[in-house]
């Protein structure tokens, strides 16, 4: 398999906090990779650096042979890496359909964007097609303010898929969704993504989902990668069990007691 994303010796610190230390990661075409790690391990920071939201303190990020470290998010999006967010990032006053049509319009260049209406039959058809892939076409005319968390998450991902990225980074696609809905949500997401053959790297806390959908797992701990390999091996790794899975289970127990 051809490598598409190559990250080497990546570091990021926020003052005294080291959020990323000597990160080396390669992602290949069509891969399904999960990123695990307890809260504050640096998972989101990693995604933020790859997608240009944060500038690394040092290190290299190459995508399809091009250096992208420190580029603006819009350049990186246009070059083929798209992302979703831990908390869905949407525009409260726009409908689902308008989100999608704006995402499509953002891909075209020139004066067309200044004078032709956003709404058109062609734009609607295209938008509805992607929404259909993600099972949310039924909500097309609802404004996001009125939507359930799961639908928002799906819309956030559908927007990221509009430009047919080669690499899709999903930051906790199932967070904020009820446990019994997580698998169904993941099924929909993966179904939608599979249409495009994009490589996917998703951050996930639920180990059942990780073992179901990932071929490879990267484990973060305090800004470092402590394990990186086939799913079964990493989930059985001693340090991973102690520092990550243990902690997550403890956190889940604490949370369930609070309920």
């Amino acid at each position: 398999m051809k490598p598409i994303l190559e990250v080497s010796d990546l570091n990021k610190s926020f003052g005294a906090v080291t959020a990323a230390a000597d990160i080396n990661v390669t992602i290949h075409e069509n891969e399904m990779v999960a990123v695990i790690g307890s809260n504050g391990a640096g998972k989101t920071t990693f995604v933020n650096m790859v997608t240009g939201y944060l500038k690394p303190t040092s290190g290299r990020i190459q995508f399809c042979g091009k250096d992208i470290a420190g580029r603006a998010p819009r350049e990186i999006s246009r070059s083929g890496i798209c992302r979703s967010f831990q908390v869905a990032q949407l525009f409260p006053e726009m409908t689902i359909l308008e989100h999608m049509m704006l995402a499509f319009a953002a891909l075209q260049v020139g004066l067309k964007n200044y004078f032709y209406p956003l709404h058109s039959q062609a734009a609607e058809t295209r938008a509805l097609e992607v929404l259909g892939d993600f099972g949310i076409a039924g909500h097309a005319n609802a404004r996001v303010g009125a939507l359930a968390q799961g639908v928002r998450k799906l819309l956030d991902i559908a927007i990221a898929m509009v430009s047919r990225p080669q690499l899709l980074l999903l930051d906790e696609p199932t967070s904020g969704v009820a446990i019994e809905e997580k698998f169904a949500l993941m099924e929909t997401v993966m179904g939608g993504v599979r249409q495009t053959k994009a490589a996917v790297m998703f951050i996930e806390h639920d180990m059942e989902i990780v073992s179901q959908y990932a071929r490879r797992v990267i484990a973060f701990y305090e800004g470092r990668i402590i394990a990186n390999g086939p799913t079964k091996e990493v989930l059985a790794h001693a340090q991973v069990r102690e520092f990550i899975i243990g902690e997550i289970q403890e956190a889940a127990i604490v949370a369930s007691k609070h309920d």
Partner: protein
Amino acid sequence: MRAFDKTPLAIVVATTLLLVGFFVFPAWLSLMVVTIIAKALVVVGVVVLMRSGLVSFGQGLYYCIGGYAVSLGEQVLQITDIFVLLALAMAAGLVAGSILGLLMSRYREIFFAMFSLALSMILYGILSRTQSLGSTDGLNIVQPTLFGIKLATQQAKLLIYFTTCVLAALVTYAVHRYIRSPLGYASMAVRDNEIRVEYLGLAPKKVFYSNYVIASVVAALGGAITALNYGHVQPDMAYWSQSGEFIFIALMGGTSHVAAAFLGSAVFETIRTYALELAPDAWRVILGGVLIAIICFLPKGLWSLTQFGKRSGSSDWDRVVDEKDST
């Protein structure tokens, strides 16, 4: 699913009525209509900026630039043709807006508001101190010509009135299109979430920049029309209270449609005229009271009065009614 766009038709009807109106209106009313439209044009720019979340306390800058461009065009360049003068004013607004926009599109919120205020006050300061530009007295403007033909006073009034109405119709249509275009939606998007817009592959700065330039050009046009209408310009056009008036009108009218600026301007001018007559000392109090009432009872401005009983289509921006239905 998509509603038929009634705006172009409404623009044509309203413009036709106004053009016919000239032959029926008393002179003071025709003068007032031009005043209303000139100010509304500036307010259209304020509305465009507001939709992206920016409040400019300095649109007087471009209003003034437009006015002085007409006066200087006459005095320095010896231009008297109305169309050339108006084009010159818009070009001046375009150039100034394009340059200052590079700077202004970096600022948001109160910083943008104060910065725009500061720029307009600088112009005010310069103009009111420059003897050759008439200082605080300003400059006079002679009657414009049409294609080199000198006109009688009444004809010139007709020319200014007609030109104003037709140009306003064109601007309204163009801005209406803009608001419904991807850039128009992107303006609303950058107001709510700039980061997300970046990730869509758009540059938020470009969105702010194009809004800023559009607002500059229409404000300069408004200033130029005011100059021709009154035959006079003065530094007060750039004074902060003038800019404040534009925001005042924008709030009165609302921001959900371009035409709201015209409605706001008409109501503003009418109330001011009558308030001045009825209570010369208290007209500001009356206007202030009206604005407070509008903010309390019609938070989306007077324009929401035109939306009552209407289920707006998916392309419409203010869907207060729909939102309540779906929750």
